[in-house]
């Protein structure tokens, strides 16, 4: 069974204080690892897809990296508008027909001014 574990569950940072969110996964064969951002009362918003160990993707203050067992979302010099819940999800090779994802429970990030 595919599993995704995110840590920490919640993280409070000061504005400008860089940090990393962790996503550990077990999957029969990784087809892709996804990061999403979710604001309160809204649906998740796609950020990145990573496919193989060693891959990195960047978007503004966010950088996602991937190893064979985990992914990190690095947040550099965050601003209050980066406050959100960040979700990690994996897609396994074994899923046929459509691309169902298995999600972690998310990290609730708060950036204080």
């Amino acid at each position, binding site marked *: 069974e595919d599993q995704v574990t995110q840590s920490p569950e919640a993280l409070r940072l000061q504005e400008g204080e860089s940090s990393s969110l962790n996503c550990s996964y077990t999957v029969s064969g990784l087809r892709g690892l996804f990061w*999403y951002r979710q604001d309160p009362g809204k*649906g998740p918003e796609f950020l990145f*897809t990573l496919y193989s160990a060693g891959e990195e993707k960047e978007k503004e203050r966010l950088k996602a990296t991937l190893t064979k067992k985990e992914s990190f979302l690095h947040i550099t010099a965050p601003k209050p508008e980066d406050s959100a819940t960040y979700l990690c*999800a994996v897609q396994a090779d074994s899923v046929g027909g459509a*691309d*169902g994802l298995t*999600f972690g429970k998310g990290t609730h990030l708060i950036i204080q001014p």
Partner: protein
Amino acid sequence: DVKVTQSSRYLVKRTGEKVFLECVQDMDHENMFWYRQDPGLGLRLIYFSYDVKMKEKGDIPEGYSVSREKKERFSLILESASTNQTSMYLCASSSPYHFSGVHYGYTFGSGTRLTVV
């Protein structure tokens, strides 16, 4: 610029009622999904569809059914609503993997918060 539209943001229904949640996407995506999201449990897949009139059970299909008569529309049906189905319901769509394996992720709707009393 809304691409996945869920018909209701908030719904309150009574136990035993038949409930329909509607989702429409305008991106010509083949794949559509219904998830529910609960505190402490995260997102869980209820059903998905990869083509018109096709449906597959996800991880928690019990108590739900779906309908996909047109490519752009995917409906979630609660045959007899129960209080344990109180949740946030999220619809999503995606295009299939391209031959090069590039995937651009899901596009989610804004969600329907359903309360069953």
